[in-house]
């Protein structure tokens, strides 16, 4: 294998905590972040449950010391908050001292402001500043600015629920090719009426706590989050004598090419993505110690992903769990959130439980890990599968 892709910093804000430590605590304590909607004014308040972040926009603005007039959407606020944490966690003081880039991911972008001011734009000049904040790249531009990136490679990926996984995948490839020395990668999505109603029309949202891989699963809970990793090249790690949290060892991206929103029954895309990632990592399937599954708790995803597990791992599917019961499905951020969780699993040699599971699915006998399990972990695989057939797999490891 070529160069090692070192993870030297992490930052996260989700429904189960405002930083890495708080998220870890909640994972260990089995503390869910799923609740009724409190921050969005929607008629579906009582019909849906979501993974909401405690902080209001005003509180986030204060942390970022924005002051005055600005046009940050919630996704931009969350993204800047988490990305700054990651950079600080990596002990980076001079961001431009190495060739540094930013690859972020979002599906919602500035939609929260668009849906709020859609008609008001025509009557109130004050709110027109949000027009420029609608497009998906806007939150990334703001994060770059907050980090002090200038004249840098900065881009955004939007591949639905696999977006942040793809941001990590691209970042790793950019480092490997020597295009960058350092790259901040991840994703951010705030909750919006747009996504709540969108998923409602698809009838895949649960009105209660989501139950991944359970026979009686009723669908997903949407969540909001932002999570970023700092990836650095071997050279930077050596020169700066960096502590390495883990390595991005493998990555795979494939398309299901089956249906615009649904996954194929047999999980073709997920199978291909996992196989590609194993190949890039130079790992055999029996070297995977834990799978952090996409596991959204929709009937379709969990069946498709479970079948893909059987196709890739045969009779010896590794310990697996979905952490969506904690955070909800955080869409574009999910791959970033679960990358942080995968690294935490490696660091602490622990498998987080798949909460709310009761009965195995009748199609196969796969049972997720339902209790916290201490286990020596070397290699963790994380899946992110999405609309448009987009499937991505990342493999994290203790060794390069």
């Amino acid at each position, binding site marked *: 294998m070529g160069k090692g892709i070192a993870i030297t910093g992490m930052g996260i804000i989700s429904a189960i905590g405002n930083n890495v430590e708080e998220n870890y605590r909640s994972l260990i304590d089995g503390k869910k972040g799923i609740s009724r909607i409190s921050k969005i004014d929607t008629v579906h308040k009582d019909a849906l449950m979501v993974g909401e972040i405690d902080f209001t926009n005003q509180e986030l603005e204060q942390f970022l010391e924005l002051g005055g007039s600005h046009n940050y959407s919630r996704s931009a606020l969350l993204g800047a908050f988490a990305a700054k944490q990651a950079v600080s966690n990596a002990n980076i003081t001079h961001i431009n001292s190495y060739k540094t880039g930013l690859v972020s991911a979002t599906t919602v972008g500035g939609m929260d402001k668009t849906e709020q001011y859609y008609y008001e734009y025509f009557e109130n000049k004050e709110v027109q500043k949000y027009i420029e904040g609608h497009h998906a790249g806007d939150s990334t531009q703001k994060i770059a600015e907050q980090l002090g990136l200038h004249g*840098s490679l*900065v881009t955004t990926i*939007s591949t639905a629920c696999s977006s942040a996984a793809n941001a990590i995948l691209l970042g790793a490839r950019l480092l490997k*090719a020597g295009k960058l020395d350092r790259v901040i990668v991840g994703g951010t999505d705030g909750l919006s009426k747009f996504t709540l109603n969108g998923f409602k029309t698809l009838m895949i949202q649960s009105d209660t706590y989501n139950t991944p891989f359970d026979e009686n699963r009723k669908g997903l809970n949407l969540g909001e989050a932002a999570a970023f990793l700092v990836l650095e090249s071997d050279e930077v790690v050596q020169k700066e004598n960096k502590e390495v949290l883990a390595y991005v060892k493998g990555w795979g991206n494939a398309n299901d090419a089956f249906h615009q929103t649904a996954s194929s029954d047999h999980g073709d895309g997920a199978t291909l993505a996992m196989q590609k990632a194993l190949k890039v990592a130079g790992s055999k399937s029996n070297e995977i110690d834990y799978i952090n599954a996409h596991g959204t708790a929709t009937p379709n995803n969990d069946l498709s992903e479970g079948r893909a597990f059987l196709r890739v791992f045969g009779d010896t599917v590794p310990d697996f769990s979905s952490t969506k019961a904690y955070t909800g499905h955080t869409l574009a951020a999910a791959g970033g959130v679960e990358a942080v969780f995968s690294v935490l699993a490696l660091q602490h040699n622990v498998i987080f439980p798949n909460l709310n599971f009761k009965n195995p699915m009748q199609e196969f006998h796969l049972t997720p890990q339902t209790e916290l399990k201490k286990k020596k972990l070397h290699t963790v695989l994380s899946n992110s599968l999405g*609309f448009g057939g987009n499937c991505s797999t990342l493999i994290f490891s203790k060794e390069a």
Partner: protein
Amino acid sequence: MKPVYINSVASISAQRTFDNSVFLDEITEYTDNVIRVIDPNYKEFIPPAAARRMAKGIKMGVAASKIALNEANLENVDAIITGTGLGCIADSEKFVSKIIDDNEEYLTPTSFIQSTHNTVAGQIALSIKCKGYNFTYVHSSVSFESALLDAKLQLEYDEAQNILVGGVDELADHHIKIHKLVDHIKADVVNSKELLESNTEGAVFGEGASFFVLSNKKSDHTYAQVLDVATYNSFSKQELQSALESFLQENSLEISDIDIVAMGNNGDIGYDGYYDALSHGVLKNTAQTYYKHLCGEFNTASSFGAWMAAKMIRTQHIPEAIKLNGMEPSKIGTVLLYNQYRGENHSFVLLRGC
């Protein structure tokens, strides 16, 4: 590392560009501040029943991808990588306005599904059953260049042999209206020919889709080699010149090696100064061309620029309508593209004849 070639091109734009046998022989002039594409006969590319349900962006993207695949004599590719600033924004608008107008009732999924940015890449994958790498970049005016860079990396390392790369954006009503409010769209109509002399704020908005098959194998229909692609989130006008010089240096080139520069001037008095910094500066003695008077401004308009550059190299011809300073090189070998939008998200792309 393997060289990377453009083996086919396709463009659906406000000009009659979907026909690859011609190259801006006839120009459609506009006197407007919003210009739309000249549609090909979509039935040639998409079954009518499917086309009826498709957003404009999907139709343009799928049709352009079919034209590019046909020209490259390929039925499938190893990867599909698209760039789009706004995705199928007309469907986003439809869904948002229904949420508001009907107070979150009576919604149907179609427009929500189409509004996701990766719909075009997903639909192309579905239409040709491509299970390979599938990516969508959504970073304003470097959406297409990000896709190009990604494809180039994969082909150089031989992770893929043929990749479909494209940029696509569509116009939508609310999008137009609100961008008029903030003068991102020019307040008055302007004639295409006089775009750069308008001396007003804002741009003439457009739409379109330009797709390419990139390959690490040269064929008898190869247009050009993609030498390099670079994007930058921010620059001051002062930094631009040295950034260009170091970009060229990394490719062992000097300013004098550039035969033509194709620039993204859009007639916005607030930001065209970036282009002037180069065209009045280091590129003063280089043949200069521009294109947004033909296709309009949109986040992936630079994919039209790349189409134009590839066609210039192939035909060894600079159509009259795109000449900016009248200079003409003795041969069209190396073409530099420079683009930015509202002072942000700058890009350089280098193409060379082969």
